[in-house]
């Protein structure tokens, strides 16, 4: 132990290197807040479609612009991460997978699945666009 006493250290955030599981945990919150902000674009998109062809073309134009695509990439990655990690949270809520070895394995599954789904979505999306 770093304090030389052999006793466990409190995970003080400024001196404690967060394990991957903890980083993924706070990432779940950060992506959740980011996705909540994304509901503004969802609302604009749906309302524009209800207003007029010009308004909808503006919204679609923004989404298809360079900045819009960058936002969409971020939101798609955040959505898949939050979805995959959310399912993992539901497994925890069911009282399963609390062993450290389970957590380590599920870290990799969540990150791998979120990355794979994001890349797959963009390959399919850019192909059909």
């Amino acid at each position, binding site marked *: 132990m770093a304090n030389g006493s052999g006793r466990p250290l409190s995970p003080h955030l400024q001196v404690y290197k967060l394990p991957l599981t903890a980083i993924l945990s706070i990432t779940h*919150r950060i992506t*959740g*807040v980011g*996705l*909540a902000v994304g*509901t*503004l674009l*969802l*609302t604009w998109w*749906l*309302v524009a*479609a*209800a207003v*007029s*062809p010009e308004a*909808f*073309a503006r919204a*679609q134009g923004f989404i*298809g612009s360079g900045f819009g695509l960058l936002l969409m990439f971020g939101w*798609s990655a955040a*959505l898949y991460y939050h*979805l995959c990690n*959310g*399912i993992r*949270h*539901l497994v925890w*809520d069911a009282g399963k997978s609390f062993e450290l070895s389970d957590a380590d394995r599920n870290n990799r599954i969540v990150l791998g699945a979120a990355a794979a789904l994001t890349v797959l*979505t963009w390959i*399919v*999306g850019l192909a*059909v*666009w």
Partner: protein
Amino acid sequence: MASNTSDLRSPLARVRGLGSAKDGTEHWWGQRLSAMALVPLTIWFVFGVIRHLGADYTAFHAWMKSPFSAVMMILTAVVTFHHAHSGLQVVIEDYVHVEWQKLALLIAVKFLSFALAAACVLAVAKIFIGA
């Protein structure tokens, strides 16, 4: 009863099951239920968005004129705002410790969530009805 003599709660408190936060597990359960509902809704939404990338007004309206699509879009919007609101509420309660700021944020997020959800529902309904 005799098996649990260390329980300091009164029988009434135990039956109510509301705990120290006074509202029991309702918020927690609502978050989980909306999360479960959002798994299929999100998958539907992502597929729908991909199929309508760069769609024009007419194509988008054709999509939302299908009763199934309109219902799914309304459910996606409503459950998303419910879930986002519950999540933001927890984040605010955890990190904002100045009472008036916490209250102001909680109220703002709640009002905004309802307003945006209402706008989404009306938009889809308007397209579906063709008004």
